């Protein structure tokens, strides 16, 4: 492939011209050596004003047929969730598979699955921000939205797992008329309440703060007075003043610095739910890092799934380029190997600990009645991502899409394996049993996807799906600036007055 004329501003490339390798400027480096500059993050010779148009367009026009079709499917699934939850609350826990000896079933599996999905959004928005990974700008807005919606889905499950969901507010420590009856602060389940609610709220604030300048952009493009008014209120009257940017940037950095340990703490605390119980297969110190890595792994898979749709259906190929997808594929492969390493370490420790119970649980996990689930988990999570050793496959949309789906299947089964295999073989063989999913277990799981996609589709309908102000900041001003004259400035005003 021939490259376009290389110059210090070799920033005009098409998505199809990207190679994922730096552009070599022969003799342009120090002491006459070669200078390697990264490929542009935004392709297609976009101007700053094009960014507004390309991204805001989806929130400004009547939704396409495709959007309505997707929304109809998502709403149907959401309906399935609502019917299932109402039935569950009306009929009671007996309708799902949770029973002796497996008292933690799909609710906990789904809870850990969804909360894990959320983690990649925070990782992209906060950790990659701190590491100055500029490619995050193309995907961070949608990934953060994904976090919020995944946390919303996750939040349902601990509440219905309570059995009497209408007493969920008892989990909140406040002076009450029940004694006062306080929660037990020594319990990891109480820590969970704090971790999940803090995570949800801080993610929402981080996302909203990032949205402020873009909401102002949408406002300034709006023509209908009510639309202007609503977006102005939402943007808190943002006008791009540098006296605001000064504090804004400081606060954004701090939010990133706070969200980074927060995201690690949340899944650590989720893993404490398991690790602090004296149960073979759960009572291990590897759980916090193992869970956090798994969460990032599954979340990145979900980001790849969503970004594939955004590239294909929303024409975001200039902002979410193949280079972005390749970077995510690399993270997927790395975290996949770490997850595989954790699976192996668990086995080693089960043998090395000399504990009969641990040894049995792990032999049973891989070769017992749930061996098929373990096989799905290990194949999807540790083996399938190995395809990303090949650059060609990292940059192949269909390969990325299929792998991202398989990884999320694998990660759901990972939680299934962890929850079910430790419980289904009790210490007494007389208490052994199996866990059978009923149709209600399935309908609640499938319905939760309906909630997730309904929220996500509403997000792409009403809000800028790419962080406009951040993307503008990483574009080359020489290419992106407006060819502005005084006449240009007068034009929109004249048009408005006319």
């Amino acid at each position, binding site marked *: 492939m021939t490259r376009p004329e290389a110059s210090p501003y070799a920033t005009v490339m098409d998505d199809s011209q990207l190679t994922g390798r730096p552009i070599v400027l022969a003799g342009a480096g120090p002491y006459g050596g070669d200078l390697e500059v990264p490929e542009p993050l935004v392709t297609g010779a976009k101007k700053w004003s094009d960014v507004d148009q390309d991204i805001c367009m989806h929130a400004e026009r009547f939704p396409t047929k495709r959007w309505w079709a997707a929304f109809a499917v998502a709403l149907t699934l959401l309906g399935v969730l609502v019917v299932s939850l109402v039935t569950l609350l009306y009929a009671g826990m007996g309708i799902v598979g949770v029973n002796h000896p497996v008292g933690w079933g799909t609710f906990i599996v789904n809870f850990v699955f969804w909360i894990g999905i959320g983690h990649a959004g925070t990782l992209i928005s906060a950790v990659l921000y701190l590491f100055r990974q500029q490619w995050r700008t193309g995907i961070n807005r949608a990934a953060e939205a994904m976090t919020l919606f995944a946390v919303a889905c996750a939040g349902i499950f601990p509440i219905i797992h309570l059995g009497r969901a209408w007493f969920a507010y008892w989990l909140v420590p406040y002076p009450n008329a029940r004694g006062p009856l306080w929660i037990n602060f020594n319990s990891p389940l109480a820590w969970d309440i704090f971790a999940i609610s803090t995570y949800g709220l801080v993610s929402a604030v981080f996302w909203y703060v990032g949205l402020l*300048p873009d909401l102002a952009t949408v406002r300034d493009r709006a023509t209908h007075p009510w639309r202007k008014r609503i977006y102005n209120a939402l943007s808190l009257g943002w006008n791009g003043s540098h006296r605001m940017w000064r504090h804004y940037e400081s*606060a954004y950095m701090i939010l990133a610095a706070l969200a980074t340990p927060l995201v690690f703490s949340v899944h650590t605390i989720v893993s404490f739910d398991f690790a602090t119980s004296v149960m073979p297969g759960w009572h291990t110190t590897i759980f916090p890092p193992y869970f956090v890595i798994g969460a990032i792994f599954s979340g990145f898979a979900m980001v790849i799934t969503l970004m594939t749709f955004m590239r294909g259906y929303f024409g975001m190929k200039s902002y979410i380029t193949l280079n972005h997808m390749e970077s995510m594929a690399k993270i997927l492969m790395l975290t996949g190997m770490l997850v595989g390493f954790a699976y192996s370490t668990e086995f080693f420790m089960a043998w090395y600990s000399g504990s009969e119970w641990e040894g049995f649980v792990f032999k049973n996990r891989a070769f017992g009645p749930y061996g098929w689930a373990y096989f799905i988990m290990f194949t999807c999570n540790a083996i399938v991502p190995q395809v990303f050793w090949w650059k060609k496959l990292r940059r192949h949309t269909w390969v990325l899409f299929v792998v991202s789906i398989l990884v999320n299947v694998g990660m759901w089964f990972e939680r299934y394996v962890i929850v079910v295999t430790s419980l289904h073989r009790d210490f007494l063989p007389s208490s052994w049993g199996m866990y059978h999913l009923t149709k209600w277990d399935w309908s609640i799981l499938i319905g939760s996807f309906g909630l997730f996609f309904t929220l996500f589709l509403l997000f792409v309908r009403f809000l800028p799906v790419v962080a406009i102000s951040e993307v503008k900041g990483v574009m080359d001003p020489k290419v992106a600036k407006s060819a502005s004259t005084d006449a240009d400035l007068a034009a929109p005003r004249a048009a408005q007055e006319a």
Partner: protein
Amino acid sequence: MFTPVSKKGVLGHFCEPDEALAAAAKVRDAGFTHFDFLTPFPIHGMEEAMGQKRSWIPWATGALALCGILFAQGLQNWVMIFDWPMNFGGKPFWSWPSFIPITFEAMVFWAALGSALVAIAAGKRDTVPQPPPMEIETGATVDRFVLWISATDPKWSESGTPEFVKGLGANGVRLVDLEGGSDV
């Protein structure tokens, strides 16, 4: 909310961040204080060019984080030791390691939410007198780096300031007077 409104001043825009930076330093050196740059994205080094100090938000974050820690420690210790002591296998009531996770979460919660609120309020407070954003079309959220000098500035002069802004190389320099309606 806090933004003082000024209906009179001069606007001019630049097309590149580097030009805006250079212009900001000149405006600062000319002694103006009621001036501002409205930009579509933050420009690195603009704080210094506009003569501003580093943002003090981190100090607020620190104070808020401390509040969060004290709140969580206070609540957990009071509940678990005094108000509702529970005996778990003879373990001490003051089981401080298990108070750590909630303390951490409360710290993050207070610091993050508080910092966001403080930063927005502080930004509004620091804003120089300027017209409400919707009454004036600037393109500052699109692709222009807009310089605004308010007529409330002590160094303001009716004829001199627009000339000064033109001299900086700004495009589309115009006098804004929303009261009088004149638009040069």
